[in-house]
C-alpha cells in the first residue's frame, strides 16, 4: 500500500512536470516569429516551386554580396560592409562598395568576389581625428565603354552640410582626376544613383525641398558636367531609383508621392524626356527595380510579408507588355463566302499578371541596387 502511494505521488509529479514544461514550450512556439533573423540566401534557396531567373543576379545582404544563378545562391564576399554591386559593360567584373562606419570605398571585384583593386581611398589620414575628414562613395556605375566610373560622392561638403554629388572619374585614376557633375541642394542629402545614358551624361536622383517644404526626390538628367540639367519627373511624384531597360527605351523607377508608399512605375525614354507614367505595382513597398537583360521582366525587392524584410520578386513582361493579339482567322477555304461573316467571339480577358515572390526569408539590403548579367 505504501509503495503504491509512493508510485502514485511520483507519477503525478512526473505528469505535472511534463504538463508544465509542455505548456511553457507550447507558448514559446506561439511567438509570431516577427523578430526571427533573416536566413543567409545560401541557406534558404528560392522555394522549390520558384521560377529560375535568366542569367546571374547580384544582390547584397548583411554586408555580403551574393549571386543567384540557375536558382541557387552563392556567397561572394564575407559580411564586411559589401553593398551596391554593378557590372562592367562586358560583364567581366563588378564594381561594388565596401562600407565601414566612417567611410565607404569603391572596389573592383571579379564575378567570384575576389577583390582586384581598390578604386577610391576615402578614409581620413590616421592622424586626422575629425570624423568629417572621411568621405562616402555610393552607387558606382560604369560608362558604356567601361572607362569612366560614375558615383555619388560627398564632395564638396561644408561643416554640417554633408551632401552627395554626382562625380565621374577615370576607372583607372583617382578622385582628384574626377569631375563634379551636379550641384546638390544644401541640407537635402544631395544627388545620388547616377545612371550613365547612351546619349552622354547621366540620369540621377536629386533631393530637394518641395513646395510644401517637405524633402522630395526627382529624376534629373544632365548632359554636361556642372550644368544645371533638368528635372524629368515632378516634385509631387517623388520618384527615385532610375533603371534603364536593356534596349534603352524605357525607365523603371519607384515613386512615393510623399507618402509611405512605393510604386513601381515605368515610362518611355527618348533620350531627352520621359513619357507617360505607368504604375505596375502599387500594393507593395517596392525597391530597386531592375530589368532582366533579356527583356523578360523586372526584378525588384519588396517585403515578403507586411512590415517584413525585403525579398526578391519577379514581374514577368506580360504584366506590362501583353502579348500581341492573335491574328484574325483566315478566310474559310473553299471559295468566297457569301453573306455576312460570323462575328468572332471576343477572347476571354487574360487574368492580370502579378508579381511572383522568389525568396521567402532572405532579408536583402533594399538600399543596394541589383546587378544582372545576361
Amino acid at each position: 500500500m505504501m509503495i503504491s502511494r509512493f508510485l502514485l505521488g511520483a507519477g503525478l509529479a512526473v505528469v505535472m512536470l511534463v504538463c508544465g514544461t509542455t505548456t511553457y514550450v507550447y507558448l514559446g512556439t506561439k511567438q509570431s516569429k516577427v523578430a526571427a533573423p533573416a536566413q543567409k540566401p545560401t541557406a534558404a534557396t528560392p522555394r522549390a516551386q520558384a521560377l529560375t531567373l535568366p542569367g546571374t543576379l547580384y544582390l547584397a545582404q548583411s554586408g555580403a554580396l551574393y549571386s543567384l544563378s540557375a536558382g541557387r545562391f552563392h556567397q561572394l564576399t564575407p559580411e564586411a560592409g559589401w553593398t551596391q554591386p554593378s557590372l562592367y559593360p562586358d560583364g567581366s567584373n563588378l564594381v561594388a562598395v565596401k562600407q565601414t562606419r566612417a567611410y565607404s570605398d569603391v572596389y573592383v571585384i571579379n564575378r567570384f568576389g575576389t577583390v582586384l583593386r581598390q578604386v577610391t581611398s576615402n578614409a581620413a589620414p590616421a592622424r586626422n581625428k575629425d570624423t568629417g575628414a572621411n568621405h562616402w562613395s555610393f552607387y558606382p556605375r560604369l560608362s558604356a565603354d567601361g572607362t569612366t566610373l560614375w558615383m555619388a560622392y560627398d564632395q564638396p561638403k561644408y561643416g554640417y552640410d554633408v551632401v552627395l554629388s554626382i562625380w565621374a572619374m577615370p576607372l583607372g585614376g583617382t578622385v582628384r582626376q574626377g569631375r563634379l557633375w551636379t550641384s546638390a541642394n544644401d541640407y537635402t542629402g544631395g544627388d545620388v544613383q547616377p545612371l550613365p545614358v547612351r546619349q552622354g551624361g547621366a540620369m540621377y536622383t536629386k533631393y530637394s525641398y518641395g513646395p510644401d517644404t517637405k524633402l522630395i526626390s526627382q529624376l534629373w538628367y544632365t548632359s554636361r558636367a556642372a550644368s544645371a540639367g533638368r528635372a524629368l519627373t515632378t516634385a509631387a511624384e517623388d520618384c527615385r531609383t532610375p533603371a534603364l531597360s536593356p534596349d534603352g527605351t524605357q525607365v523603371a523607377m519607384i515613386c512615393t508621392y510623399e507618402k509611405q508608399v512605393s510604386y513601381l512605375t515605368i515610362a518611355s525614354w527618348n533620350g531627352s524626356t520621359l513619357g507617360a507614367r505607368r504604375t505596375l505595382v502599387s500594393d507593395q513597398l517596392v525597391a530597386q527595380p531592375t530589368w532582366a537583360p533579356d527583356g523578360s521582366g523586372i526584378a525588384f525587392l519588396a517585403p515578403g510579408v507586411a512590415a517584413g524584410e525585403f525579398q526578391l520578386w519577379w514581374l514577368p513582361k506580360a504584366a506590362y507588355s501583353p502579348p500581341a493579339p492573335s491574328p484574325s482567322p483566315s478566310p474559310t477555304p473553299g471559295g468566297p463566302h457569301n453573306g455576312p461573316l460570323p462575328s468572332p467571339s471576343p477572347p476571354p480577358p487574360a487574368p492580370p499578371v502579378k508579381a511572383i515572390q522568389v525568396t521567402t526569408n532572405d532579408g536583402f539590403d533594399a538600399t543596394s541596387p541589383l546587378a544582372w548579367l545576361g
Partner: protein
Amino acid sequence: MSSVAGGLAYFVPAAQTALEATGQVIQLPSPSPTSIFTSRSPSPSPSSVPGAFTVLLLGSDDDSKFSADHVLTQSMILVRVVPSTKEVTMLSIPRDLYVHLSTGGFAKIDGAYSYGGPGAAIATVQQDFGVHIDDYIWVGLLGLVKLIDAIGGIDVVTSNPVMDDYYPADIYSGWPYDYERVAVLAGPQHLDGIHAMQYVRSRHGDLQSDFGRSQRQQQVLMAIRQKAKQLSPADLPAISAAIGGELKTSIGLSKVAQLLPLAASFDNPDQIRQIVLLPPYTHGDGPDGSINPNWNLILPLVRQYFP
C-alpha cells in the same frame, strides 16, 4: 494546474517587467505662482468624444552624459486617438519651444521633464497648449533601439539620404561626447534599431533641423504601429525582456491589453493626421537658441484637433 504553472512561468517575467514599467503614478506639480496668470487653459478637461484619449510620448537622450533622473526630452509628441472614428492625430512639439514651465519660470520645453519628471512635462504641455493628457509613455534612446530590434525591425520609406558627420556616438561608445558618421540612404528599406535611431535622431543634415527630425519620428512611429499588428501575446516576454527599464508609462496593464487590438484596427492612412509646428506656428530668435511659439496660431490648431 501544472499547465497553469507552466503558463505563469512563461509570462511572469514579462508581467513583472510590465508591472514595473506600466501604471506609473503621475505627480503633477502644484502650479507655480506665475502660472496662475499665464495658464491658457487653467483646468483642461477630458475630451467630450466618448472613448477618445490623448497620450504624451516622450523620448530622451538618457546616455551617460545625463543623470538618470534629469534627462531632457528631445522628442515630445501628442497623440490623440478617437476609437469610434478610428482617427489618430500626432502633433510634434519642438524640443526648443520657449514656454512657461509648470515648475516655474520660462525655458525650453525639453527641460520640463528634467526639472520635474513626467508630471512636470505633462503639466507644462497641459497648461501651455490647453489640452487634457490622459497618459504618457517615456522611452530612452536604448529603449527605442531595443524595442525596434525586439519586434524584428521596421519598414520605412526614408525621405532622403540622412548624412551626418557629427552624430553623437553616445549609446555604445565609452566616451559619450564622441562623434561618429551616419549615412542612412534613402528609399524603402528595413531598418534595425540602430539605423532607425540614426534616422530619427540626426538633425545636422536637415535644413529644418528639429522640425525635419520630428517628421521622421512620426514616420517611424507609424512603422512601429504597423509592425505591432503582426505581434502575438506570446511575443510579450521577449519584448519586455529586451526593453526592460528603458520604457515607462502611466498606462496600466489592463488598458494596454485594450489598446493592442485597437492599434491593429487603425488601417486607413488618410485618418492619421501628422502635424509639425513649422513656421508660421513658430519662429526662431528665442532666448538661448530657443524657438518662440505663435500661440495665436497654435492654440486654434490644438483646439481643433485636441478638443
